[in-house]
């Protein structure tokens, strides 16, 4: 699955909060501005094979750049406002509000946030856009592809020390609307009744994490061709008119119960780093496959250099929208088409990535990465480079 966000413009709330922050508190010392930057490029070994990580050209292209600015200001002792704006080269550098929320520091160790928040799907979700904070140029594509990164809602975040362990607990409810592109097909997604929990426990050099999310998801796909003569919508029309009309609901993503489960482990001893993550993403009663993805990464620091290797795997389970249709000569074409539709939604891939991070100076890292991709649709090798910074 190759997903790109094409549109993520929720300027209203962001501007309102930014405006709030700029007027009365501009003079106050309690306005913090921080930023991050990533300038990156890459090329593939064989442009006639599959694209990977947004690269499909044998010539070096620099089109994975982003600039982020975060402004946060105190409204009073207990309440602060935060806006994070990101401009991406893939969006023509239009600034869009990634997050915009108000934080109420309920107690010393707990806070409530209201607004547009990052959905805590993965271990690296919170700082996914801040490449400086991790070893890779970007987190493994096999897992970190979901377009629904943010949610409008409310969350509660609690940290506590449990004996000699540090724990955190986050729970949220919310919803979102988003436009995106799913393997070349543009679509709009809407989530309702979305909720999730994420918890971590750790000590000095290791952190364990688990998360679970669920929502009622609707995705409307723009029409696409299944073959030269039949489009997706035409086929659904035929199905509707057939004795198997109830199968249509097993294809469409229409308020379908969707679940996301994750477990992860992160290790950083100073000398050695390691990370591993496993996720399952399932949209029930739809033609989308159940995505089963995992990776394991290990690395070692030597002076200002960090060398790392990652093995990532996609091993999806295809949906079976044809289940329940009796097999006969008459139904064979329908079953065949349904299976073909489901088959396009599965990803079966092994990727091994080798990378080096060089901390050029405090706040600036230069990274190189080589990905060796073995997909059931083809093989690819990707070389990429990025300069990433925080300020």
């Amino acid at each position, binding site marked *: 699955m190759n997903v790109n966000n094409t549109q993520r413009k929720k300027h209203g709330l962001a501007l309102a909060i930014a405006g709030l922050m700029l007027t009365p508190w501009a003079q106050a010392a309690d306005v913090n501005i*921080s930023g991050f930057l990533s300038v990156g490029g890459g090329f593939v070994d064989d442009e006639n094979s599959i694209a990977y990580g947004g690269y499909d050209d044998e010539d070096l292209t620099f089109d994975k750049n982003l600039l982020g600015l975060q402004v946060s200001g105190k409204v009073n002792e207990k309440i602060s406002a935060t806006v994070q704006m990101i401009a991406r080269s893939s969006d023509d550098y239009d600034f869009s509000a990634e997050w915009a929320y108000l934080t109420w520091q309920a107690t010393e160790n707990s806070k409530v946030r209201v607004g547009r928040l990052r959905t805590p799907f993965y271990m690296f979700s*919170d*700082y996914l856009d801040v490449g400086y904070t*991790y070893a890779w140029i970007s987190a493994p594509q096999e897992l970190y592809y979901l377009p629904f990164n943010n949610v409008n809602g409310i969350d509660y*975040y609690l940290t506590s020390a449990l004996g000699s362990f540090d724990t955190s607990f986050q729970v949220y409810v919310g919803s979102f609307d988003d436009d995106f592109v799913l393997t070349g097909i543009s679509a709009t997604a809407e989530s309702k009744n979305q909720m999730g929990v994420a918890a971590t426990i750790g000590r000095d050099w290791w952190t364990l994490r688990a998360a679970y999310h669920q929502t009622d998801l609707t995705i409307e796909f723009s029409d696409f061709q299944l073959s030269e003569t039949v489009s997706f919508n035409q086929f659904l029309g035929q199905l509707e008119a057939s004795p198997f009309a109830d199968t249509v609901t097993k294809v469409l993503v229409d308020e379908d119960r969707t679940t996301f489960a994750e477990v992860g482990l992160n290790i950083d001893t100073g000398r050695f780093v390691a990370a591993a993550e496993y996720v399952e993403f399932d949209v029930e009663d739809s033609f989308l496959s159940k995505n089963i993805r995992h990776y394991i990464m290990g690395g070692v620091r030597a002076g200002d250099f960090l060398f790392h290797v990652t093995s990532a795997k996609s091993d999806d389970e295809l949906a079976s929208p044809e289940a329940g249709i009796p097999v006969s000569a008459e139904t064979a074409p329908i079953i065949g088409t349904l299976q073909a539709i489901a088959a396009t939604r599965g990803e079966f891939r092994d990727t091994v990535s080798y990378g080096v991070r060089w901390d050029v100076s405090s706040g600036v890292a230069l990274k190189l990465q080589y990905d060796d991709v073995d997909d059931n649709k083809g093989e690819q090798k990707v070389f990429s480079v990025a300069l990433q910074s925080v300020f």
Partner: protein
Amino acid sequence: MMKNFLRSVAAMAIISWSGAVLAEVAVIVHPSAGFDSLTADEISRLFLGKSKSFPNGSPAIPLNQDDGSATRDQFNQAICNKSPSQYKAYWSKLVFTGKGTPPKDSGDDAAVKTLVAGNPKMIGYVDASAVDDSVKVIYKLP
């Protein structure tokens, strides 16, 4: 030629060795603080944002020296077990998630000492040679 090379290697070794040993860093609080020492772990928790109060329960405000200061680098390496870039990456994770704010960059030895001397909530670190009666030393490194 070879002799000169060996001599300069020896000189560099002596300089770097003496450089590492000479600097003594003192962790300081207000003289009125109700405790006389903290462990390295307790100090590390304060400076990494894992804890927001001293072990006796009173609120704590940790202060950093400015980015690039040798005292800061030595303190972060010894107490927080992080190089300057690892320290930066650690705080970036918290800053860009709204989950924390790093200790404020508060200047050099003199500036940190003055701030700590004037506020019972503050905790900072300075080169041991800068310490005087206006502050209380609760930990010394190395």
